[in-house]
């Protein structure tokens, strides 16, 4: 059970969150073309290591929380608001 520190609510159990995927991809400009949207929607770095990702605090404050989490150890290095830039530790 991950313990995720919501920037607003504080540390909360995974049970309150819904995982919502890679937070490093950004929605392209409207006219960027199909390939740009294809990358945005489909292709992923899928690292074995630190991953910056979205967890929606669905049973809490309803905010999307940015989380830097290790996909092998499940350690969490940082959490922040959607507009925060979070440092990603070296492996």
């Amino acid at each position: 059970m991950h313990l995720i520190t919501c920037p607003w609510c504080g540390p909360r159990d995974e049970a309150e969150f819904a995982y919502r995927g890679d937070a490093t991809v950004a929605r392209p400009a409207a006219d960027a073309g199909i390939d740009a949207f294809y990358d945005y929607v489909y292709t992923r770095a899928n690292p074995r290591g630190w991953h910056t990702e979205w967890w929606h605090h669905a049973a809490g404050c309803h905010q999307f929380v940015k989380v830097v989490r290790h996909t092998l150890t499940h350690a969490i290095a940082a959490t922040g608001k959607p507009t925060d830039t979070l440092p990603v530790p070296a492996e």
Partner: protein
Amino acid sequence: MSAPESRPAPEPRSPLAGHLKPGRHGAAGSRPLVLREVPATIVELAARRGRAAELAAAVRGALALDLPPPGRGAAAAGATALWIQPDTWLVVAPRGTEGALAAHLKGVAGAAGSVVDQSHGKTLLHLAGADARAALGKGCRIDLDPAAFGPGRAAVTQMAQVGCVLYQHDDVPSFSLIVPSSYAIPFFDWLCHSAAEFGYEVP
């Protein structure tokens, strides 16, 4: 076409109507928990983008209520405000005239806030007693120990699969629990089940 009616709206029905069984339930014990439903007006108040300070000032001026920071509630004479989301609060007051609090807040907030009446969408329960923490702990995953929580603290969380706004009033301890009305029955049932070990009373 008939003219708009001016008589006050009738008494709203509680989603727990017919479901609350007054009396003593569960195990016999010397310090039963007390569990009841509290009729309330509940209004959601959100600041427009970038106007939280303005909104807070307006509310302070009109209601003598300080909109609390995350994780907290603030009580004033007529109402309690609970933080539920960034720049968003529930304002909870005793049940009054239909729509009156929302209308008042709309006036107070002006263009600085968005106001949504949730009085019918949310059900307010009250649980008090020495074993209240243990009863809630059967579903609540946040730490309610005095070292971590306490009077004045509020949390938006989930218990028994139901989203719940929790507010601690005092050291009894007594808690307010606000749940979506459509979930009121299963939530109430779970709470009764959890409290049964300690014994509880529905006034």
